[in-house]
């Protein structure tokens, strides 16, 4: 590989907008291509069919994964382009990364880190912490968020076509194993405290109605998965309450 100075900073900044042109045709593809482009500078760029242009076009093909881990594919594909890997190998590499990066990211972030901190914040607010809990949530969440994006980009570049090795990093393996139970415990803790916080202004009869409504709503959501969502339940309950409130003056 020729000596190149990868522009990680610019690529990282662009990765924050990786879903900016999200669409059903290429999913994150365009965003990944835009983030990869600074790392491709240094490839021969003379003429309309240069290696640089071919790599930019490949970078914008279909791609779908967790946005925080997309940097792994960006770094790996850019490094593979500089290493002179065959185009079909790079396409296969990108395709092969979609599933694992989506799965790991979803478990680690959407089903782990985010609800863990959200649950702790709900509990803290319910216990009277106020807006400081929200500030703490933002700071702690984004320390993990930015660190993960940075690590993914660097690890992708470091490993190139052997990027699968990065997926075995303890950060991902142990992190995914630990964050699930922590999330479950935190949200479990938050639910009764939040119920008490929200029910505080209500009188006895209203609390009884609240308890019955919450249990019935939970059972309805449990028995009708897919057909009944939280939004539909909320709109249904609100419509019923408006009728009851209008009649029962």
């Amino acid at each position, binding site marked *: 590989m020729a000596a190149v100075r990868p522009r990680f900073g610019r690529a990282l900044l662009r990765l924050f907008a990786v879903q900016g042109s999200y669409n059903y*045709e290429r999913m994150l593809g365009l965003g990944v291509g835009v983030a990869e482009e600074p790392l491709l500078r240094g490839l021969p760029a003379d003429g309309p069919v240069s290696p640089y242009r071919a790599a930019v076009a490949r970078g914008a093909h279909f791609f779908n994964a967790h946005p925080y881990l997309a940097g792994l594919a960006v770094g790996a594909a850019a490094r593979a382009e500089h290493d002179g890997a065959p185009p079909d190998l790079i396409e296969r590499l990108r395709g092969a990364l979609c599933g694992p990066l989506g799965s790991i990211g979803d478990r680690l972030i959407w089903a782990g880190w985010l609800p863990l901190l959200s649950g702790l914040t709900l509990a803290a607010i319910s216990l009277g912490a106020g807006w400081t809990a929200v500030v703490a949530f933002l700071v702690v969440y984004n320390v993990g968020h930015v660190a993960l994006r940075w690590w993914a980009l660097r690890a992708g570049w470091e490993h190139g076509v052997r990027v699968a090795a990065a997926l075995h990093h303890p950060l991902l393996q142990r992190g995914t194993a630990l964050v699930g139970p922590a999330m479950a415990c935190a949200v479990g803790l*938050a639910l009764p405290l939040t119920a008490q916080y929200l029910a505080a202004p209500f009188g006895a009869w209203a609390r009884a109605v609240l308890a019955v409504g919450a249990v019935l709503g939970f059972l309805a959501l449990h028995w009708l998965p897919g057909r009944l969502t939280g939004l539909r339940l909320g709109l249904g309950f*609100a419509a019923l309450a408006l009728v009851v409130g209008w009649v029962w003056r």
Partner: protein
Amino acid sequence: MSLEGWLALLGWGTLVGVDLVSLPQMMIARPLVAGTVAGAILGDVQTGLKLGVVFELLQYDILPVGAVRYPEYGPATVAAVATAHAAAGALGLGLGAVVGLVTGLVGGISLHVLRRVNSRIVSAASVALESGDPRVLLRMHVGGLLRDVLRAALVTALGLAFAWTVPPALTGVLSPRGAIVLAVAAVAAALAAGAGGTIRLVGRGPNLAWFAAGLGGGIVIAVWLR
């Protein structure tokens, strides 16, 4: 509320809407954050926190994996807080939740429409994209971003229009008791959605025991604090 207040809420709701998917996903789109800041803008942090908690629980019903369609609760929470602040008193929480739910529904539809529009534009430009010209790629991408900014602004504006018109229209219709029923219904739906979403997230594996332990601890603390 002053014009400056409405404009500040519109700006904040737009930022929140863009953060959800496009830029930078730092979770200001979470209802807890969106609601608290909206409350601070209105000088009513407590209302912002309360509506933020209600919509955060509703958010647990959503796992944003793949191209799944879901309601957008960020700008919805901003509109909900504006409504609750305008209605004030017992009427606030329930009316705010109703306005927020409708705004969330519209926001979710707008996300789907935007993605379909983006798909058509990308499809039409596929030959240009295959040329590998980075300026074409950047223009397409920035275009998508700007469309999302416009979408978020429109959704927030619609939510704020509800916040402006709904409280005066319903204040005379609902009795204080009716307002409490509405608030109870909103909180019940939020708690049900929060619990249901969490159970789906936790599953039936070993995490269920951790959830039960947390739930037990939460109940003990709640009883102790009464």
